[in-house]
């Protein structure tokens, strides 16, 4: 167990080092001057000299790299050239918004996608299976922005059940104060006991979560169905049937555990990917997440922000993968043997 974890951790560090080299190299190769970006139009020579010294641009490239690595290791991602605030602070603030939507979306995907996949595997080529399959194909084929806008038209435009966009009703946001303990509005409002604010936060989450989950839902349903079909054809399932085991126990205990490995892989990858922020969903719902921040930073040549976000996201992605690897270890006894 310890050896397994150590191996994965070592691998993670190597990959992160690689990411640092690449982001650093890219920031030096890409056109555009960070100095200009930082100082605006017509700076004085004095200002330029000061900035050059601050960014170490006059020193040899390997010295610059060592400064960069040292900063990163200390958790200092630099200051955003655009907002003038520390990049880490910006990222964390945006990240919590993304994290809230994404996590809820993944939970929804697992809760709906897995049973649906099992059901359509069990009822192979029956009505449920065809229905789930059409739904999967539709979910994958429809562009995300279209799904989002259709949901808005229905639930906001026609029915007026749910808000159009944003994280919270601005009047409620002003009237009901709650401390940002976790940055997750659902939890913060509950902690502060602000019931109205909680309801508003929840209502604002529904459509973004739905939109974000539909495409992944399709993938997870599909994968669950196909692995389940494969597992159900195994000899050990026949053994259980030959001993009169009830179907539900066969499907949801013995067969499901065998499908966990491929399913964990897909769910982990999906989660890691979504944590990068979905630009489209954020734009459609005016959601202050990471995706929009990254796009802004890239278009404005905000190098510290781009580099910081890249490293931050790589770390998160690798951490999710690490967790998945550990879960593999728990699920599959054959891994434990070696």
């Amino acid at each position, binding site marked *: 167990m310890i050896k397994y974890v150590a191996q994965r951790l070592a691998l993670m560090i190597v990959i992160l080092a690689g990411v640092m080299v690449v982001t650093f190299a890219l920031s030096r190769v890409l056109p555009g001057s960070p100095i200009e970006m930082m100082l605006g139009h017509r700076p004085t020579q004095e200002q330029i000299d000061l900035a050059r010294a601050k960014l170490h641009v006059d020193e040899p490239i390997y010295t610059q790299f060592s400064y960069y690595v040292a900063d990163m290791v200390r958790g200092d991602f630099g200051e955003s050239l655009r907002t003038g605030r520390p990049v880490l602070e910006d990222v964390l603030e945006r990240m919590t918004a993304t994290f809230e939507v994404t996590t809820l979306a993944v939970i929804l995907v697992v809760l709906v996608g897995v049973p649906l996949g099992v059901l359509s595997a069990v009822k192979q080529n029956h009505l449920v299976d065809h229905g789930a399959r059409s739904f999967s194909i539709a979910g994958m084929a429809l562009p995300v922005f279209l799904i989002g806008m259709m949901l808005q038209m229905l639930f906001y435009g026609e029915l007026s059940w749910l808000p159009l966009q944003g994280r919270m009703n601005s009047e409620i946001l002003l009237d009901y104060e709650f401390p940002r303990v976790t940055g997750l509005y659902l939890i913060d409002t509950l902690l502060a006991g602000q019931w109205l604010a909680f309801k508003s936060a929840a209502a604002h989450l529904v459509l973004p979560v739905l939109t974000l989950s539909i495409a992944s839902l399709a993938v997870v349903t599909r994968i669950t169905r196909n692995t389940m079909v494969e597992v159900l054809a195994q*000899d050990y399932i026949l*053994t259980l049937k*030959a001993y*009169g*085991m009830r179907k539900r126990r066969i499907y949801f205990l013995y067969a499901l555990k065998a499908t966990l490995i491929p399913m964990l892989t897909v769910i982990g990858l999906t989660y890691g990917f979504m944590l990068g922020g979905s630009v489209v969903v954020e734009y459609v719902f005016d959601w202050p997440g990471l995706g929009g921040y990254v796009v802004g930073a890239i278009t404005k040549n905000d190098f510290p922000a781009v580099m910081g976000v890249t490293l931050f996201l790589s770390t998160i992605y690798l951490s999710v993968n690490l967790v998945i690897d550990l879960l593999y270890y728990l699920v599959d006894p*054959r891994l434990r043997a070696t």
Partner: protein
Amino acid sequence: MSDKVLEIRNLNVTFPSLERNVHAIRNCTLHVNRGEILGLVGESGSGKSVTSMAALGLLGSSARVKGNIRVVGREIIDRSEAELQEIRGRKVAMIFQNPFTALNPFFQVGRQVMDALLNSHFMSKEEARKRVFQAFKDVRLPDPEIAFNRYPHQMSGGQLQRVMIAMALVCEPELLIADEPTTALDVTVQAQIILLLRELVAKKNLSILFITHDLGVVAALCDRVAVMYAGMVVESGPVVDVLATPSHPYTSALMKTVPALGQTKDDLSYIPGQVPDMSVPIIGCAFAERCTKVSEVCHKQAPPRRAVLTDQFSFCHNASGPVALDEIVAGGRL
């Protein structure tokens, strides 16, 4: 009711598909008496496994099954899933050809055996665990407590097959269906498993339907034998009689294919031709195309069942002996 734990009569199984219907079992009739081991032999594709699956009602909804199958007096065909679950495990248990794939790799073997027991019998977990340990001892698994917590990948094929036999025993069925349980094992392990089964039959009042294509195993283990060809039993009777005086050319041909020690490669015998296409109706005797003693009548008329000895029956035009009457069938001879 007579003392038969398994009685299959005029079983017909068809697998319909868009292009052609495969008629896998044609009028198969056989039975297993209480306390005996019946060997069901035949080459691949003769319908042995389909027959055994039908006996458990495991063929699935796509198969069309007709005839009668009685397990310990209970009809299997056209029963609901709930009724079948009552019988499976409790009355009849099964062990399979490949012990490496028959157990779930994600669960400890002891847990799987215990679950099968708890599913068919009402008892506490403690009691179940005790019985599983006892069953592991009965099948001679060393260190039952350690074996209980092992995963399938940590055991050898012989050990896994012992676990499967333990799973069957612990449920205390009256009939055990063993579908080529020694085919995937080493010859030495095969001998151990066969000895074990022999011993268990004597001790536990068990009856076994033993499916195999190995006549050597039949000779060593079984009391009676039924030879299957193209979806029907062509000859049946006590092992001594059938192997000493085979009355069906297919049985004789099968016996010639058993290689003996000291034989050279050139001596290896096989049956020329192949099993008939099961998707077209068979006129006359199914074996006629490959038979050395074929005559004109074989291609035209299906052979009747003849009693060549008191308990040995054969479906061959050339067999001597009176045609067995249906009354005898009803009386429970075959």
